[in-house]
């Protein structure tokens, strides 16, 4: 791999969180994550300041900044923008060079992409206009079941039954959950039903672009072990889930800023 000689920063402005990664000599030296809130630019500045402070750097030390994510243009400063699917692919190949398919499930939307050995996207698909394939879905369902989001994934691993959830929409899914509650279905089984339904939606999207055995799962929802389990089973493989999957987009932006490409 090419050794990076510069300090770059990647800013991923997502629907819910802003993630920042600072890269130096092929290594992540700092990262930060703050809630986007309503004043996104201000929050992004806060995230950048937080990351810079950790390593005692200032804006002047940065050679290049790339912004990505749904709010990429809201970054307080940037030299360029790059699509989130492009950033995800690049970072996934950086972290796991065999990766040729990447699934990113964030708060707002799910994305699937195929890439080459350099991390360049070959094809991509986005699950849009539907929360049922995104993190917002698990949040809504964990609220409905009165289970903290952090425990929701682990809870579903304790399920004893597979209960199909037919809903294609968060609103209708919630009403299905209500029916399950009335039928005295255990919370663990309901949590699994939610993750299976979401995995089914995401896998259907990924099947549109096609996938091989080296699939990386990134984005905040990759931290949900229940969802990962459901998606592994649905796709019939073992997904590569990097450490800190929510930072992958920002890492890709920082890598792009450094001109990094895989396959070298």
């Amino acid at each position: 791999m090419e050794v990076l000689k510069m300090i770059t920063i990647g800013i991923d402005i997502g629907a819910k969180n802003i993630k920042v990664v600072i890269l130096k000599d092929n290594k992540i030296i700092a990262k930060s994550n703050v809630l986007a809130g309503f004043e996104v630019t201000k929050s992004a500045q806060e995230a950048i300041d937080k990351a810079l402070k950790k390593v005692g750097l200032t804006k002047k030390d940065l050679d290049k900044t790339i912004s990505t994510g749904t709010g990429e243009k809201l970054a307080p400063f940037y030299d360029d923008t790059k699509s989130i699917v492009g950033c995800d692919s690049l970072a996934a190949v950086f972290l796991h060079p065999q990766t040729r398919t990447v699934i990113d499930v964030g708060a707002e939307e799910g994305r699937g992409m195929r890439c080459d050995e350099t991390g360049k996207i070959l094809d991509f698909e986005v699950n849009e206009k539907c929360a049922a394939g995104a993190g917002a879905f698990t949040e809504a369902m964990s609220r409905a079941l009165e289970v903290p989001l952090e425990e929701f994934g682990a809870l579903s691993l304790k399920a004893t039954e597979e209960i199909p959830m037919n809903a294609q929409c968060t609103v209708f899914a919630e009403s299905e959950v209500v029916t399950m509650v009335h039928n005295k279905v255990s919370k663990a089984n309901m949590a699994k039903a939610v993750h299976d339904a979401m995995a089914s939606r995401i896998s259907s999207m990924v099947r549109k672009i096609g996938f091989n055995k080296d699939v990386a799962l990134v984005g905040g929802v990759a931290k949900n072990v229940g969802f990962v389990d459901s998606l592994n089973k649905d796709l019939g493989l073992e997904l590569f889930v990097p450490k800190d999957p929510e930072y992958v987009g920002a890492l890709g932006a920082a890598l792009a800023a450094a001109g990094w490409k895989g396959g070298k």
Partner: protein
Amino acid sequence: MEQEQKYPTEKLKCWNGAKEIRMKYYKDYAEAHDKGGLRWAGGAWTFDAIPAGLGDDVFPITSEPYGATIAFDKELSIECMEAAEKEGYPRDLCSYMRNYWGSIIIDKYPFGYNDKKEFVPRFEGAKALGFPKPDFIWQDHICCSHAKWYQVVSDLEGGIPMFTVDNAVGPSHELTDSKIKYVVEQLKDGIKFLEKVTGRDYDDELLYKAIRNHFISTSKWAEICALNKAVPAPLDEKSIYSLYVLGTLQKAGEQVADFYEKNLLPEVKQRVKKGIAAIPNERYRVMSDTQPPWSFLSIFRYLEKFGCVSVGSLYTFGLIGQWEVKKDGTWGPKTIPEIEFSSRDQALYEYVKYELHKPEWQHFYSCHLKSDMMIRIAKEWKLNGVMLHYNRGCEGLTVGIAENRLALLEAGYPVMAFEGNNADEREFDEARTKAKINAFMETLGAK
């Protein structure tokens, strides 16, 4: 992003001429009764040479362009959509149709007169006229919405005489004499119906003239589109939308045939000869598919930032254009039949035989026929990729589009699919679509 100006560019000289034809069309329809003429309504695909035999003072309004015209007037479109929904028509129906019905329900025409008594669009300051009720409906039926569309129009207007032709006789490569005659016989019945409901005598000479105009409009439009194989492309798709629409308004009309043959075609030929480009920084070429989201044509301008031009689509090429495979194996304009018409039967037979080859009718029978045509365009028009509109507003043209995507990918063309609606702006997300375009441009290497 590449901003290099590689090619000379200039505006189309006949642009204003096209606009004038369109405005005159809607004005003629609105004012028909003032001059003792007749108004008729029907689809853009209908056999519009037939009502032409009733006289030169019989003016049409075609449904799909009318729905698109309303869509472009966002404020009016929302008003129409909401009015249709209030009447109980659901949101998943054809969005052109809902605009059209809404326009009747709220009794607003998207045109009218301004303070200077000029006939202009409502959004240019005109006080909207009421919807001008047609005297009869002349429709055909291949799309699942088309016949029902006018049944509701008739109901909403308290009854309008209606004739619908079933032209769903199968793909053109399976066309037989009996299938052609099946449609011809319906047209003959239709002529009798028109005579009865209008009280007018039918003039076959006017019919022959209209069919000739039809041949010219559709063949010359294809020739114009074929010129866009040139690099740089002389036309971009956003402009093509404003030009192809004339054919959807009145392809059997002399003014449209003349415009395509005598104005636009020579000018586009000149542009190719002189290397005049639609966009000066052309580096990448794509095509789209189905109707665009009419309220957001700016996405086509957005492509230009990346040096990318959308050179057209099967939709714009094949909705009006008639094509044939030339000796060298490439697609070119359909040869205009050199036949002197001597009888109604003979003229109708030639008309139907010619028209049933319309490319945009073929994929109602099989999405694979559409894939084949799209791959042909991708090759011959030298495309780098394809943008597919998963159009929730038109199930007729969108059904099978996911199969088209797979076929294009298999043929080696990168594809970006985006969701939207041709005429219901509530179902289009501009920011997300632009984000997708950004990613797609990265895929193509344009960014």
